[in-house]
């Protein structure tokens, strides 16, 4: 019987019970605590926080457990919770230049003020699968850790070798948009675009960024700098009259430096692509900065020839909650529209067969006429 779709409440309840059972595994193994996920699967937790647009490692860990490790499901859970929270206001921009970095590397200069710092990274690990994980002691740092680390882009800015990050004068910090509270209309401002990219799907951005490297909208990138660290978030409280620190968040920032040969109006100089993501998310921050730079083609009068340079293509498809929902909705019943198509296909086939029958009988008639004529002539 066709009960899969016309199943009703009982089927749904049973399916949920089964899902919970599958997620539990064997009853004699202990349940994973969310603290363990939060502490031992930090990179995964970061991804859920970034794409869920909510900085809360505890909730992200809980969402991952509830989703049985399905990242997009966890992101959806977090977003559906986040959207019910009130928005109190806007924080001043976080000062990532001043953040005490856990990790900071630059690919453009060998030695930079503040130094290169490898930090906690998978880079240079040998990817050899091991049976048991072990933790070794971390030796104390042999250089002072709080040496200031000016931005690499700022060093290039001294000689105007790189575009300025804001106009020289007459600039005030604009209020950021909020994609989650205001309607999206294309074209977007760069701020809105960056917001969309920051919550966009890591895999999608990675592939788009990669496509620019392979010639689909190349922008000759160099990693000016990648840094990971905790930054203080402040909030302007009207009752107090000044900004108050409300907490610290871990972020990954990437500034990509891109070649630009100049145009009729603009002198040759380096340009920027920017990426900022919650938590430890280097791959995402780098991909984001590649795509950000590609999307700035209008500013530099570049021809749009590739998917990564197309704002509507990139932004409209980067949100994985939307993407997965719409792709997966195809498994919902569509039998009404399918029925409409069935009726149409049958009608079109009938018409096709009728036409063919007419053509065949016409061909048959003409052959007969030809034969008759031949016989008469004979």
């Amino acid at each position, binding site marked *: 019987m066709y009960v899969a779709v016309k199943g009703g409440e009982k089927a749904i309840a049973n399916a949920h019970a089964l899902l919970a059972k599958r997620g539990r595994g064997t009853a004699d193994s202990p349940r994973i605590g969310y603290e363990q996920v939060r502490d031992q699967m930090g990179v995964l937790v970061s991804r859920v926080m970034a794409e869920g647009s909510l900085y809360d490692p505890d909730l992200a860990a809980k969402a991952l457990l509830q989703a049985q490790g399905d990242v997009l499901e966890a992101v959806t859970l977090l977003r559906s919770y986040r959207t019910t929270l009130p928005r109190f206001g806007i924080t001043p921009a976080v000062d990532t230049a001043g953040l005490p970095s856990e990790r900071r590397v630059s690919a453009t200069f060998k030695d930079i003020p503040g130094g290169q710092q490898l930090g906690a990274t998978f880079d240079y690990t040998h990817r050899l699968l091991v049976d048991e994980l072990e933790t070794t002691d971390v030796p104390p740092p042999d250089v002072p850790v709080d040496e200031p680390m000016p931005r690499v882009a700022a060093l290039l800015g001294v000689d105007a070798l790189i575009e300025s990050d804001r106009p020289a004068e007459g600039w005030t910090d604009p209020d950021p948009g909020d994609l989650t509270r205001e309607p999206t209309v*294309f074209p977007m401002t760069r701020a809105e675009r960056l917001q969309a990219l920051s919550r966009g799907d890591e895999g999608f951005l990675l592939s788009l960024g990669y496509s620019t490297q392979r010639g689909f909208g190349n922008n000759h990138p160099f990693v000016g700098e990648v840094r990971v660290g905790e930054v203080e978030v402040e909030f302007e409280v009207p009752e107090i009259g000044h900004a108050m620190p409300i907490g610290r968040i871990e972020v990954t920032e990437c500034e990509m430096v891109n070649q630009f040969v100049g145009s009729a109006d603009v002198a040759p100089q380096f340009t920027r692509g920017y990426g900022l993501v919650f938590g430890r998310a280097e791959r995402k921050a780098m991909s984001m900065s590649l795509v950000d730079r590609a999307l700035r083609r209008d500013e530099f009068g570049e021809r749009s020839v590739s998917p990564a340079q197309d704002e509507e293509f990139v932004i409209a498809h980067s949100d994985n909650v*939307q993407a997965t*929902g*719409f792709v*997966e*909705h195809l498994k919902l019943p569509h039998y*009404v529209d399918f*029925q409409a198509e069935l009726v149409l296909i049958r009608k079109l086939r009938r018409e096709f067969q009728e036409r063919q029958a007419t053509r065949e009988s016409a061909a048959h008639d003409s052959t007969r006429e030809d034969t008759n004529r031949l016989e008469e002539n004979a």
Partner: protein
Amino acid sequence: MSAPRIVYNEGYLDEQTKRVVRRALLKGVAIPGFQVPFASREVPMPRGWGTGGVQVTASVIGPEDTLKVIDQGADDTTNAVSIRAFFEKVAGAASTTRTDQATIIQTRHRIPETPLVENQILVYQVPIPEPLRMLEPRETETRRLHALEEYGLMYVKLYEDIAKYGHIARTYDYPVLVNGRYVMAPSPTPSFDNPKMHQSPALQLFGAGREKRIYAIPPYTDVESLGFEDYPFEPQRFDRPCEICGSTGVYLDEIIIDDRGGAMFACSDTDYCERTAQQRTEQQSTDTKEVTA
């Protein structure tokens, strides 16, 4: 560190969001058929599964309302059951399967067979609100086309169908012209249902959550399915009655009954089918009584 307590607002959407949606709805009603951008929120179901409809319903539903939810015309399809259960849980709304008792009907892919009346609201779940989307993928471009009332693309498409097949080969999501101004996507309802939209006494609201658009048809508005003078719009028809209730002129589901392609045809509108079948049995029993008397 204590675990944070997860709390949801009564009715799920916060009041501010409801106001945002209501403002978009009012604008939509004021400009029939125009797609109003709104800041669509996440709701606790996947995008593409009726999140737009859910937000619209959540914003118009009140304690006195009775909600009916259908998917493919049926009240008992899993997604309809799931959405109805959601509103029972978060809004405490009374629900029904009877079209004539509902004040709000949320639907996917059908308009009920029972004619709607004044003070009823029909909420459509819309996947792709832009009728020109498959002809022009860019939002910046389609918005301009609507603004200029430039619908040549659509007419060319319909003309091409006629040139190729001898008739318009579009059977669902058949484009309509609303109030003589905006071309609008009726959502993937079959073209069979299109005539029901014209001069309907009920308010028709459309929510596209993923695409972040809302639009509306106020009661008693002209809704014309596109066509040409010599090739006018023709809704799909079925040349047989429902095998369960015997109704004619209704939309039918083809239900496969064996593994040799055998099929039966029955109403897609389950509520209409049940009530018609019931009336027929009652009628028959009165007839029998009269005969025996």
